[in-house]
């Protein structure tokens, strides 16, 4: 049996959500790895946009920043933040791939503060490009750690809106119609969103994880359908690609 870490598993499951020939805007960290993995495996024509401005780069090795020179390596164009986000506003970005400190049942993401905004318990980085990508891209994929605190019923601060308070709320707020959270990948499971209620629902549990474990570690009432499958474990090919992308284990070794 192949051995792999939970980060490697998350990266592999995340990469499976991306389609070949589509455009994805990736955030820093694990989303970056998942996008690069998809390119090296099932989606060689996946186009990556990095928010600092690079379009369709051929990233040689893991960047430290979404704006560093590795992210612009052999890109077809080097634009800027506005160039990328205006492309999203025009409806050209198919997937946004984001991380977050907290994600709630409607897929709202917090990456700004834990506690009160003006005297926070923990100050986090803020939106960066996440709110822009999550507002303007067609589908948002979210990566998070799975425990009750990180998946609460309601995030303490909506940095990036998901379905906000439920069906119709995005459109009512003025956000582009037909957009919103699509998948959530954690260290325990893959989840999606119920079309009617816009609430998070379980799709598959990772190998060795039970549905009860997922429920116990979720801070809200997760929709559990009858047919919960088991996520496919990373293949040898995927693991070797991951080790090529991040040879020093900067992200996958965490």
């Amino acid at each position, binding site marked *: 049996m192949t051995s792999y870490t939970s980060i490697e598993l998350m990266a592999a499951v995340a990469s499976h959500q991306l389609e070949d020939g589509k455009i994805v805007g990736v955030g820093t960290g694990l989303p970056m790895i998942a996008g690069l993995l998809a390119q090296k495996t099932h989606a060689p024509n996946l186009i990556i946009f990095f928010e600092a401005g690079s379009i369709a780069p051929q990233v040689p090795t893991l960047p*430290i920043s979404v704006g*560093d020179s590795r992210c612009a390596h052999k890109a077809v164009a*080097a634009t800027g933040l506005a160039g990328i986000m205006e492309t999203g506003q025009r409806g050209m970005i198919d997937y946004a791939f984001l991380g977050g400190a907290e994600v709630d049942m409607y897929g709202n993401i917090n990456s700004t503060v834990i506690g009160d905004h003006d005297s926070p318990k923990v100050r986090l980085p803020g939106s960066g490009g996440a709110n822009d990508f999550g507002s303007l891209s067609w589908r948002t994929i979210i990566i998070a750690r799975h425990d009750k605190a990180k998946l609460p019923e309601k995030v303490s601060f909506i940095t990036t809106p998901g379905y906000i308070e439920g069906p119709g709320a995005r459109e009512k707020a003025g956000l582009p119609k037909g957009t919103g959270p699509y998948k959530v990948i954690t260290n325990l499971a893959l989840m999606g969103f119920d079309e009617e209620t816009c609430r998070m629902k379980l799709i598959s549990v990772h190998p060795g994880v039970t549905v009860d474990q997922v429920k116990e570690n979720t801070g809200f009432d997760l929709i559990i359908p009858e047919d919960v499958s088991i996520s496919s474990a990373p293949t040898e090919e995927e693991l070797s690609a991951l080790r090529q992308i991040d040879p020093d284990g900067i992200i996958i070794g965490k």
Partner: protein
Amino acid sequence: MLRKGQGELLSSCTVDEIRDWNRKHKLRGLVDKVTTVSSAVEKYVKDGTYLAIGGFGHIRISMPLIYEIVRQRVKHLRVSGHTAVHDLDVLIAGDCVDAVDVAYAFAYETRGLSKNGRRAVESGRIKCVEWTNASLSWRIKAAAMGLPFLPARNLLGSDTFEYSAAKEMECPFTGQKLVALPALMPDVSIIHVHYADKYGNCSIRGTTVKDDDLAKASKRVIVTAERIVPDTFFRDNPERTTIPYFCVDAVIEAPHGSHPGNMPHEYYFDESHIRGYLKAGANEGSLQEYLDKWVYSVKDFDEYLDLVGSKKLKELRQLEELR
């Protein structure tokens, strides 16, 4: 009912103020603007200045100017944080900053959060107004266009909006709900570029991030350049000009000027330096020791580079070539 964010507008400008400033203060002629880091900071960066920094937080940042602002102990800056990383963090370490328009700040991307930045916000020393990378870019673009605001479709439905100074608006043609992003005209921008001539024409390689608009939007622009080149560099290939000379007020040659940050096509991050800085940031004592060694005890950026050492600088150039 149209909503508005409760955050403070840290810097505001009207369309007439933009025009009047540019009429009165921006030189039209081709004038030699080469100066030194210390005199440019002394002349333009005052206590309370609203400062914007070119590049991407730890990529293509003007460290000679940032260190000099700390060295001259400038206080009460308000800073635009469109992906602010090491640039802002060093200014915070030097206690130069009162408020930040935050898109991304107090963190180092894959390296994690900054203890120094977190302490400053969590203790209430620094006030935060929330924005996003696109919001700040579009606010800067509005000022660059000489307009009071730009409408957009981000921010809506979020707490980022609630803690911003943006307002909701209705499209006058369709009634579509939009967000209105107020123009941002920084008092001073500091931008590090690959090439500049003595008049201030600049060429940036790689992503511009938002620096073309930033130079147009700012009241004063100080440029540091890896190389000062003859103006024929631009006249022979005018498509090289990312920033035209009339936006720029001061030019300084500063090779390795983004150290310890990355400079695309030139040198990669000095990871051990950055990690050492982050470690020093664990408490105020070790952070002040860092500043003593790298900022206060050196006269200028040349002395700082001597401290870094030519062997290290060469390694960083090789690292960039290897990618």
